């Protein structure tokens, strides 16, 4: 971790890259998408009364 902190403090291009790409990535993580994923779990539970993680992962793979 010390090496990583040192690198980002001294390497301007790394600093810039993390700033831009990190922001882009985190901007994709929204509560609306979390709501959609939870809804898929709810649908499984109310539809048949049990949950299967593998089927869930297949169902939500398009929610990026």
């Amino acid at each position, binding site marked *: *971790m*010390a*090496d*990583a*902190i*040192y*690198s*980002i*403090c*001294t390497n301007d291009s790394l*600093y810039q*890259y*993390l*700033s831009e*790409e*990190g*922001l882009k*990535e*985190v*901007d994709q*993580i*929204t*509560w*609306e*998408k*979390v*709501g*959609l*994923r*939870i*809804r898929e*779990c*709810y649908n*499984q*539970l*109310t539809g048949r*009364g*049990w*949950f*299967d*993680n*593998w089927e*869930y992962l297949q169902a939500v793979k398009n929610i990026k």
Partner: protein
Amino acid sequence: MKVLMFGWEFPPKIYGGLAVASYGITKGLSLQGDVQTTFCLPKPTGEEEKFLNIINMSQVPVVWRDKNYDDIRDRFVGHTAVDYYRFRDHLYADFNYLQGLDDLGCIQFAGGYPGNLHEEINNFSIIAGVLARSEDFDLIHAHDWLTYPAGVHAKMVSGKPLCIHVHATDFDRSRGKVNPTVYGIEKNGMDHADCIMCVSELTRQTVINQYHQDPKKCVAMHNAVYPLSEEYQAIVPNKTPDEKVVTFLGRITMQKGPEYFVEAAAKVLQRTHNIRFCMAGSGDMMNAMIRMAAERGIADRFHFPGFRLGAFRHRSSGGHAVRLSVYHLQAVGLRRDSEQRHQSGLLGYRRYGGRHLQHLHQRQSLSVSF
């Protein structure tokens, strides 16, 4: 779809990350249009947002009291006097022996995390029995171990599926040295749950391996973030070209591993001197960290401004943020992380099995071994 949700915190009253996560999850569900959430809180303030129904557990009767509508109609926060009568029609046992019953026949909650927390958790589950009988719902969702007994009770009464949300486990909080009572409550909730939502894949593995749950019913459900408020966006970073600021954002508690940050700071300062370190948080390890910084001889480059002031100063400084968690990292989940979201130089680390740290963003992977 109607969801009966049990939670311990909800904004605007925030004790920790649970309130913000509960808000985000309910908000995300409300955006779908056809999900009605009834959120049961021990002691709401009445200032909660109105996109969901709030039930004030401190005003749900567990004992019958003869009350005139005109005398009580203005006394309710969250639900209404009409709801009170509906709840009163679904009492299921004699709880007159309970301490602290008020004139409405309700059990009072202190709110937050008082000394008699286990008693409050039990009382919460007693009230859940009334709600499970009186409310119309399709599914139960319980947030964190505090509300698992309520969720289990509601499931036993109604037969509806139970989904529990694992925001943290006692294994995370105690680094493996669990409180057996808390562990027992967590395990019982998981055993009865039909679906276990974990805030990260690492927490999911903890649930599977340490709580012996079926992997099929465990799902990683990462939290999200909120955009930074205008108040914070308006701050123009006051950068000093010759000096960098690296900030630790989070509680200064064992779970977050603040000592690793101090150790790393000491190593960095062996190589360069134009970096300042800031621990923008508070917690029971704060004094120990102040002493540790002094022992390493870096106290002149280390600052402890407290949480809110610290977060503000971090934003102002335009520095780098480090978010540490020893046993799991919630995927950039909570409001304080929205700080990091708009910061330059986001760094997030987690430790896998005590062996190595890995950068939060796989594409920018910077792995460091201990």
